[in-house]
């Protein structure tokens, strides 16, 4: 254990925790704003600290404060297993959080000949870890529903449990066909495989190599996260609010945040297995390291253009309508954030110019790692966005439709796909 490996391990862990936890308020905000814009309204945009509203993100932090200081209320009929009743949301939350911890944010960093994995939990059996831990989340839901001593909660928990069982099979089979294709159970090796090309010009992304398995994977992960259109566990119209009926304040918030962490984890798994993970299409890590100065020059153009676009977007949208007389500090906020963004762009450009002009192996490697983390975060957010937009597009499935889809369509299709994959892989290799 060298100094560098310890530092990298700590940084990877902190980064993983931040990516999982800090995205919760951002995702809550994103969900509400997106819902607003899809439905031709605005969504939360008023809460501010010293006039800085950041498009309304502050609202989520205010909600956190509200939930923290809210009264903890326990129904009096819960006598037995009250500690488990309190523990249940934590199980769901931490299962989703732990499942996220095996996702690689960047390629293996080689410092002094020592390979350091950019994973919060540096293991080589990431897929198995995900399958094992990801399925634990529903145990929290079952405990919560059972110990609430409430028929609606019990029904919701049973529905969630049976849905997870039915979708675990197609999910597992789809993942097995990916394992056969990529010839690895290591998430990082999967991403490395996807940086190749395929059919001469297509990027070898899972969605192009294994389209059927990709669709099954995405559908099954939508079901695993209990999000629309698979929200059978908490149908307001049928079973009040499902398993979380008896939960209040922070215990409710744990379930609520668990759903967002699960969504984030599902997005991370999907982009890692299907959409090339932290890689840009056609660009492998080796290529990035060898031609870093070209990438640096490209980035030096891309960053200011992005910042210019961002400032223009802000000037156009961060203002009140002409019919309203008060501005409530929006112009000031736009000015300060613009200056901040320009300063950031200048600093990034100077660093990139320095790296491009005076190549230093270690610095280049770290810069490439940062670039890959950026790509990962952008892809993660884009897929989270997709999750959210699907929620506001599709209506909820009826319970029997959910089961029919799982058992009659996805399971045979995934078995068929596994069969075809095995034949093709054996045929290509022999």
């Amino acid at each position, binding site marked *: 254990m060298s100094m560098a490996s310890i530092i990298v391990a700590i940084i990877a862990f902190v980064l993983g925790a931040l990516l999982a936890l800090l995205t919760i308020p951002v995702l809550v905000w994103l969900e509400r704003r*997106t819902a607003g*814009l*899809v*439905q*031709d*309204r*605005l969504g939360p945009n008023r809460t501010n600290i010293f006039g800085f509203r950041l498009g309304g993100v502050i609202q989520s932090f205010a909600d956190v404060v509200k939930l923290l200081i809210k009264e903890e209320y326990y129904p009096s009929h819960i006598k037995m297993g009250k500690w488990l009743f309190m523990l249940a949301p934590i199980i769901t939350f931490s299962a989703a959080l732990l499942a996220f911890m095996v996702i690689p944010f960047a390629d293996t960093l080689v410092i002094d000949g020592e390979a350091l994995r950019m994973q919060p939990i540096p293991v080589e059996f990431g897929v198995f870890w995900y399958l094992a831990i990801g399925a634990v989340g529903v145990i929290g839901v079952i405990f919560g529903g059972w110990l609430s001593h409430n028929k609606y909660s019990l029904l919701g928990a049973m529905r969630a449990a049976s849905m997870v069982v039915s979708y675990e099979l197609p999910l597992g089979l789809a993942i097995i066909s990916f394992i056969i294709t990529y010839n690895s159970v290591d998430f990082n090796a999967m991403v490395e495989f996807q940086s190749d090309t395929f059919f001469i010009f297509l990027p070898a992304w899972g969605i192009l190599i294994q389209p059927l398995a990709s*669709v099954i994977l995405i559908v099954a992960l939508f079901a695993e996260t209990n999000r629309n259109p698979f929200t059978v566990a908490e149908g307001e119209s049928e079973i009040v609010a499902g398993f979380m009926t008896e939960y209040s304040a922070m215990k409710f918030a744990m379930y609520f945040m668990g759903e967002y962490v699960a969504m984030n984890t599902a997005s991370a798994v999907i982009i890692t297995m299907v959409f090339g993970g932290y890689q840009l299409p056609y660009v492998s890590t080796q290529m990035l390291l060898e031609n870093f100065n070209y990438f640096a020059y490209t980035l030096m153009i891309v960053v200011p253009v992005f910042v210019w676009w961002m400032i223009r977007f802000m000037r*156009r*949208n961060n*203002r*009140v*309508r002409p*019919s*309203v*007389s*008060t501005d409530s500090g929006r112009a000031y906020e736009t000015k300060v954030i613009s200056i901040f963004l320009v300063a950031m762009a200048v600093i990034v450009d100077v660093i990139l110019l320095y790296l491009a002009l005076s190549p230093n192996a270690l610095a280049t490697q770290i810069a490439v790692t940062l670039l890959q983390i950026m790509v990962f975060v952008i892809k993660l957010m884009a897929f989270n966005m997709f999750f959210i*937009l*699907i929620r*506001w*597009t*599709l209506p909820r499935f009826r319970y029997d439709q959910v089961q029919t889809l799982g058992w009659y369509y996805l399971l045979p299709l995934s078995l068929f796909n596994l069969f075809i994959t095995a034949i093709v892989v054996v045929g290509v290799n022999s």
Partner: protein
Amino acid sequence: MSKNIITTPRYGKSFKDKLYLPAIYEGCKVTFKHFFTNLNDSNAVDTLEYPEEQPRDITERYRGLHRLTHRSDDTIACVACFMCATACPADCIFIEATEREDGKDEKMPKKFSIDTLECIFCGYCVEACPCDAIRMDTGIFSLTGVKREDFVLDKERLLSHKGAFGEEKSCARN
């Protein structure tokens, strides 16, 4: 008879419908279009920035906050008959009657208060009033306060509300 029957086509039987993914694509097209047009110019979203922009399209039939009307000589129209309090399903009207000194009528309310935290704004008090003394045509749609007492409207407050749609005085008692 039979020519009036319209046969609506049933969807969901064709292969494309059963595949379901084209439908998801069509739905996503709609949501994405709304999302990106509104994201591009959020000021074009057809909505009201509420506290700054007030609604200008409140109709005469809108049941706003209550008011007590006046007679043509600016005395109170209410004769404290308790009809409104009796009709009230939420029991939120509290009246104390007293003898009327100005010779207009026999009784008038000494205290008249409406607890708007309990009021369900059904308008039964307005229907029940024989004197057109209580009305809900103020057009006031928001009532804010910091403590419970702020939401109990007393007689002075109810008398101070103005009718928003022209009919200022009581039509029944003059």
